[in-house]
């Protein structure tokens, strides 16, 4: 179940709609998973034959085929906008990513002007981008992405991970793809400051795969790590199973995020649900996801981040309270049930239910 955030949103929507009695199928141009049945994109037109049918296009990269579908299909169309990383982040690391993202960003305008029936966005930040491109406010809804926190709560944590990392050392956790917009450099620098000033044993655990073609980015991070002499302190775990992920959340003392661009950031919700205190920098959708349930710094400063860790590490009560805040925010705003309700409400507005 190594699906990414977008896939989980897809599966979540499928489940909710199937429970409502609809016939739901998933299509993609390329898919890697064998667990879910995913049909080839070319069959979409056959499946969505009548006017009452609905296409939900999860938009996260430039895809001409998709744009054509949206324009040509005569059934109802909805866009789920997951935002697209600005291509500048990939300059110097991957030409392909750069091109795809550039294409995607340029296509937002076209998608917005394709006059779909519904525009769903993961976050306010995403919806704002659509509105700027001319989407009608009455068609725009914010529906957070479906996630796997319920599964995370259910599974038993991986023992090996717990043994390795629950050892008295301060663990700072970050979960997410190893991609250039995720701000790993800032985290590494913050760790350097924190270790030099307060706790020379602290560790930074970076849980997430290095996608193909972004090895140069990972290498540049390694260079930074070496220049700061943090070879033993920063651990890249690569892709992990659900059990391992749960163990990492349990072992974590803090969840730190310094992303420079996020459409929603599901790991923040996972951290909140697991009561891990959150320290982040404000950028794109991060403040609206975290709210007041964590520390959200306007500046991207390793010193502020290090100082935050120190303050919370020395104050058990505040740390626990922050974790509880996160859990409450999750329970009040981001449970799958609530997301399902928002999703169905949005669909009801175009009489799709």
């Amino acid at each position, binding site marked *: 179940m190594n699906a990414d955030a977008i896939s989980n949103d897809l599966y979540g929507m499928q489940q909710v709609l199937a429970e409502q009695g609809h016939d739901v199928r998933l299509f993609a141009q390329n898919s890697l998973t064998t667990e879910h049945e995913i049909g080839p994109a070319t069959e979409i037109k056959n499946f969505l034959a009548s006017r009452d049918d609905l296409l939900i296009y999860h938009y996260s990269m430039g895809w001409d085929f998709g744009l054509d579908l949206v324009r040509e299909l005569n059934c109802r169309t909805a866009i789920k906008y997951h935002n697209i990383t600005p291509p500048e982040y990939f300059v*110097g690391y991957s030409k392909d990513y750069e091109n795809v993202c*550039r294409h995607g960003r340029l296509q937002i305008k076209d998608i917005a002007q394709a006059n779909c029936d519904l525009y769903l966005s993961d976050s306010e930040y995403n919806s704002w981008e659509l509105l700027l491109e001319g989407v009608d406010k009455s068609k725009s809804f914010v529906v957070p992405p479906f996630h796997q926190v319920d599964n995370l709560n259910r599974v038993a944590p991986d023992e090996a991970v717990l043994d390795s990392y629950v050892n008295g050392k301060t663990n700072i956790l970050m979960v997410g793809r190893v991609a250039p917009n995720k701000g790993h450099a800032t985290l590494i620098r913050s760790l350097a400051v924190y270790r030099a000033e307060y706790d020379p044993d602290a560790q930074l655990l970076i849980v997430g795969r290095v996608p193909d073609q972004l090895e140069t980015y990972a290498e540049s991070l390694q260079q930074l790590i070496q220049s700061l002499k943090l070879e033993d302190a920063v651990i890249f775990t690569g892709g992990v199973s659900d059990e391992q992920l749960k163990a990492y959340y349990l072992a974590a003392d803090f969840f730190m995020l310094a992303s420079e661009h996020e459409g929603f950031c599901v790991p923040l919700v996972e951290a909140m649900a697991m009561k891990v205190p959150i320290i982040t920098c404000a950028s794109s959708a991060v403040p609206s996801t975290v709210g007041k349930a964590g*520390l959200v710094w306007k500046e991207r400063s390793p010193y502020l981040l290090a100082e935050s860790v120190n303050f919370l590490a020395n104050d058990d009560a505040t740390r626990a309270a922050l974790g509880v805040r996160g859990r409450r925010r999750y329970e*009040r705003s981001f449970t799958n049930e609530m997301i399902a309700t928002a999703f169905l409400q949005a669909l009801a507005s175009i009489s799709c239910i």
Partner: protein
Amino acid sequence: MHTESSDENDLDVDGLMHAIREAASKRDYKIAKADLLETKLARMFSAAEAETSHARLALSPEFEARSDDGYHVNDLLRYQGRDFVTNAYRVVLKREPDEAGFLHNLTLLQSGAYNKIDILASLRSSDEGKRCAVRIEGLKLPATIRSVERIPVLGYVLQCLIGWARFPATLRSQRQFQEYVVAQQSLIADYVNQLQENIRTELQQHAQQLTRLDPLANEMIHLHAQLDSLEFTVRQTLPQRIEDGEERLRQTAAQLATLSGDLNDRLNNISQLLVQTRLELAQQSVASDELRRELKNANVLTERMTMPGAERRSWDKLYAAFEEEFRGPVAEVEERLRFYLPFVRDFSTDAAILDLGSGRGDWLALLTQQGFQPRGVETNEVLADDCRKRGLNVETIDMMVCLRKLVANSVDVITVFHLIEHVGIDDLLHLLDQAKRTLKPGGLLMLETPSPENIPVGACNFYADPTHNKPIYPHTLMFILRNLGFADCKLEFLHPVENSPFVGDSPGFPQLNQWFFGPRDFSVIARKPAE
């Protein structure tokens, strides 16, 4: 959905972040900012540079030095101008050209007077060139020819001949050069076009980025406008509101001051009242204590004290006369009283001596004669007046009241002669108790009273005085005194009756004598134990 503000978790996140920011601003970090921070822009630039598409235009191929120092002259001849001179130096002299040499040779070349062969030859034949000893195949012959061509007149002729012979080759060379120049120009043109294309693409990207900023700029303008209007409104209304507020505050303050002044006054009054009341209460309690005491004393008062004034006086007169009648002549009484003088003489003349129920004052007079200064108390005013007239210190006051008023351990001798037979047992006990209290340690109590062991006295004569109560049984009195804690109690029987017929040892005579002619009085002398 609940809002954040209804969160019962009291955590003040803003306050926490403020504290963290304060701490960070004050701290001197070991890792300096310069070592850490790198703006996103700088990173982008450095990344962009690495993958630049603006490659430099190189019109001629890179020169590759040979390790075996063996070259063909054509290797060098294919270069032109600056490149040629530079590479010539690199090959022949194995070094970069110095500025002077470079310019010199370039100028020579550009003048046309010297060609590349000349330059190469001159470099090779220099001292340095000879030292480097680089082999250049195909140089020698052309160099030689050139040197011959420089011979005046003959050289010119030779040049012409060679030139004519080489004319086709020259033409070919010319064509080659034309093509070369054209090719170079195309290269440059292509490069420029590509450059233009790249720049255009970048500009497009930047433009796109800027358009993303457009809505932000609009938002900012909008916000500015809002801010301006807000500022204007605030400026208009705020000063007035503040002033009004301040005025109200001033008034309120003034009111408060007045009120508090009033309050203070009232409080002061109340405190004063309280103090007064407390004083009065204290006084009253003292007074009531005294009253209580006197009430207790009042129990001791004899009936006579409760008599109204005039009646009292006539009774006192009567009793005074009675005393005169029945007490006996003064001389006789005095004689009897002398019995007690030895005991008194143990004390100094300024001893405190108190005589309770001093009556005619016989004992007092006797004491005064002896140099003492006794005090007496007597409730009969007539008798008391009489004593006072004779210069004796007598107070008309009930003896119990007198005793009660005395400080403990203040009297050396108390005498109670022919008094205790007048009082009831309760009063007697009171009297003895108070006597013990008021006597100094080692002080004396001397009592005299009729003895009931003398039967006529006890059964008949005793009742001559209507104010007598009951005879006191001597041994009972002794018992009481000892029980009260008096020490050295002495019992003496005094004043036997004269002319007893029952003298001798005839049967019954001692008894009869004792009963009928025995002592009329008894005395008890007791001492308060010393400390």
